[in-house]
């Protein structure tokens, strides 16, 4: 009987049930504990952790502004491209991969192999490539090769407008030209996006979303006329080929506004690849050899030679020292300003000045001196003006100081009037002892065309941002000479082309005025060489000037060493196209 009771009390089933119940109790207790821990104790931290895994914060890069010419043609814009990159550790056969995609990317396969075998976690294979090429490469499904979208700057006009637009670096920062000067306006303001994403990386609808859109950069409308810019560049390239010159530069200004219609030259460069297209520069690491990036019209200085005589004569006429018909007696072909200078036999001793061509001593009118570009006669006229007044006119015409053009790193030029210098005034009268940029010379001539009012040259006419279009204004202007003097000077300039040294600058259908300039180049030893800088600056139509063109040919061959031989034909070609482009009516029947 007792055995039965014992058996009943310790029934195996009951024990099992008890264990299971106990287990379930513990399990539930454990789960409850965990639940409380997760839902109460760690709730906030875990929620934050989960959110941080879903939340993505991204900067929204702004679209860089566009650059247009005066007719609305695109000069620069930004488009989406793809940048290929690799995770070297994931690439199984780097040699095969390098050979496979090297040709598609246009990158040397050895270079690619080096990148693919580097010990870095991330290497760029090529940046900002065409989306189609990127897609083709990704289509190969090579492990470890990826792409991400990236903006790239495109210059549809290529080399034609490169000296105006300048360029940006690989990261889109302005480095040169308008891209540099207007970098702040062009780049815009980045936005940001904060949103929840799913496992596939897609934004979760109705999830957390905080998006501040990027503000696109402002667009620039310029005064540049692209077809004229092209014509000017072509004229320069032709001139270099014809005269065997080192370089050629052209500036075209609109007289009434100071707007730059064209500003170009050769050698040229490709703004997208940021590589010079001058064959002479290939393989050269010497920055002095390859200066193609530098816009000489704004940044380069040269001694203007006889083109400077415009200022000398304008000063003399404005000050009433001479008139156009004033006769200057006994104008020889040699003038000794410094005693004994002409006896030394050293052509580099300053103080002995020669005319370009030998001639007998004769009485010459001011008009004749200007038309024949007599150095001796010009110095004799400058003597009447005196150094102090001459310098003030040179400065008023804008030489020796920056014009203020909206372009990067403008050169102010040089006025060399050292204390005690006895010959500087004479040298300056004929365009030595003074160094100017082609732009400064063009602006000085524009002042004569603008009835004696100097106007600050500029490239950008208006800026268009999200708030609308804003005209660029507030350009500096100043009176340089009276309208009467400007009129007389225009007649003198016209006579140079009609019967003087600049006959090659004539343009059919238009009465043109201008002045030739030929200045010897300084060598490395600061002594003048046989090489020259030939220039021509002129206006048209001379009776109501609309356009100024300045041309500089650097180191032409001996046959073309003068401004009349090399620069004047370029001037004629560019001026003719400029007059046509602006629709200026012919004034010569």
């Amino acid at each position, binding site marked *: 009987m007792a055995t039965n009771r014992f058996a009943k009390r310790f029934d195996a089933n009951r024990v099992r049930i008890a264990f299971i119940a106990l287990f379930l109790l513990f399990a539930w207790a454990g789960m409850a504990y965990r639940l409380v821990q997760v839902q109460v104790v760690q709730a906030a931290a875990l929620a934050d952790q989960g959110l941080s895994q879903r939340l993505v914060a991204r900067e929204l890069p702004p679209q860089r502004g566009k650059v247009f010419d005066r007719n609305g043609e695109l000069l620069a814009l930004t*488009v*989406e491209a793809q940048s290929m990159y690799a995770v070297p550790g994931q690439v199984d056969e780097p040699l095969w991969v390098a050979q496979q995609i090297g040709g598609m990317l246009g990158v040397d396969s050895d270079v690619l192999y080096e990148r693919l075998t580097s010990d870095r976690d991330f290497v760029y294979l090529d940046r900002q490539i065409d989306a189609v090429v990127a897609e083709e490469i990704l289509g190969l499904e090579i492990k470890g090769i990826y792409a991400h979208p990236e903006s790239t700057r495109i210059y549809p*006009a*290529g080399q034609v407008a490169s000296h105006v637009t300048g360029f940006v670096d690989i990261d889109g920062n302005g480095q040169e030209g308008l891209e540099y000067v207007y970098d702040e306006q062009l780049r815009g303001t980045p936005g940001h996006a904060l949103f929840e994403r799913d496992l596939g990386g897609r934004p979760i609808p*109705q999830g957390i979303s905080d998006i501040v859109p990027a503000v696109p950069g402002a667009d620039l409308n310029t005064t540049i006329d692209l077809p004229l810019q092209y014509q000017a560049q072509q004229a320069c390239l032709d001139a270099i080929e014809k005269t065997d010159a080192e370089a050629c530069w052209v500036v075209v200004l609109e007289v009434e506004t100071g707007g730059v219609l064209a500003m170009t030259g050769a050698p040229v460069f490709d703004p997208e690849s940021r590589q010079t297209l001058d064959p002479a520069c290939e393989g050269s690491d010497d920055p002095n050899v390859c200066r193609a990036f530098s816009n000489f019209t704004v940044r380069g200085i040269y001694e203007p030679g006889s083109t400077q005589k415009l200022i000398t004569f304008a000063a003399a006429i404005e000050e009433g020292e001479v008139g156009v018909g004033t006769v200057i007696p006994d104008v020889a072909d040699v003038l000794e300003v410094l005693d004994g200078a002409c006896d030394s036999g050293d052509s580099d001793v300053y103080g002995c000045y020669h005319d370009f061509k030998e001639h007998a001593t004769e009485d010459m009118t001011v008009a004749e001196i200007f038309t024949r570009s007599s150095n001796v006669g010009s110095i004799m006229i400058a003597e009447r003006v005196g150094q102090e007044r001459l310098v003030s006119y040179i400065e008023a015409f804008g030489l020796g100081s920056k014009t203020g053009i909206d372009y990067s790193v403008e050169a102010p030029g040089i006025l060399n009037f050292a204390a005690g210098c006895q010959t500087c005034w004479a040298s300056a009268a004929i365009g030595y002892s003074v160094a100017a940029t082609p732009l400064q010379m063009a602006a000085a001539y524009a002042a004569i065309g603008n009835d004696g009012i100097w106007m600050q040259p500029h490239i950008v006419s208006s800026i268009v941002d999200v708030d609308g279009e804003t005209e660029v204004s507030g350009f500096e202007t100043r009176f340089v000479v009276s309208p009467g003097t400007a009129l007389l000077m225009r007649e003198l300039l016209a006579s140079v082309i009609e019967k003087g040294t600049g006959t090659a600058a004539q343009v059919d259908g238009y009465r043109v005025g201008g002045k030739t300039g030929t200045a010897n180049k300084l060598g490395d030893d600061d002594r003048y060489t046989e090489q020259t800088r030939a220039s021509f600056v002129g206006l048209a139509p001379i009776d109501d000037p609309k356009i100024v063109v300045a041309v500089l040919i650097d180191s032409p061959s001996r046959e073309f060493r003068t401004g009349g031989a090399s620069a004047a034909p370029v001037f004629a070609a560019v001026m003719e196209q400029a007059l*046509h482009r602006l629709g200026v009516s*012919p004034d010569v*029947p």
Partner: protein
Amino acid sequence: MTARPFHQGATEDRLRVLQGRARSRRFVAPWMVVVLIAVIGFLGLIFARTSLDNSAFELAELERSVAEQSALNQQLSLTIARLENPAHIAPLAEELGMVIPVSTNQILVDLSPSGPTVVSVEAREEAQ
């Protein structure tokens, strides 16, 4: 066996049928209404949420499409700009036999009372 007589009359006096109001039973209980409303509300909420999500997906799709079209538009603008580049046009024009005018083609318009006539300078010079 005894039998009691049936007093019919007395029974009739004590018991009678009353015509009272029948007890009415509600067809739907209040808690069921609440549950029903809750269920309908819940389903409505789910439907609205789903519709909203669908709209959001459609919106995202449309935005992606807009971005694609914008990119295409950008590419086309770029293509047009490249084609309009004078450096591209000039060689093509040259191939077609076109030339850049090298001299001014002047046209003189005679506005005399006899009637306007247009004479080119070249023609006039030849006549002279």
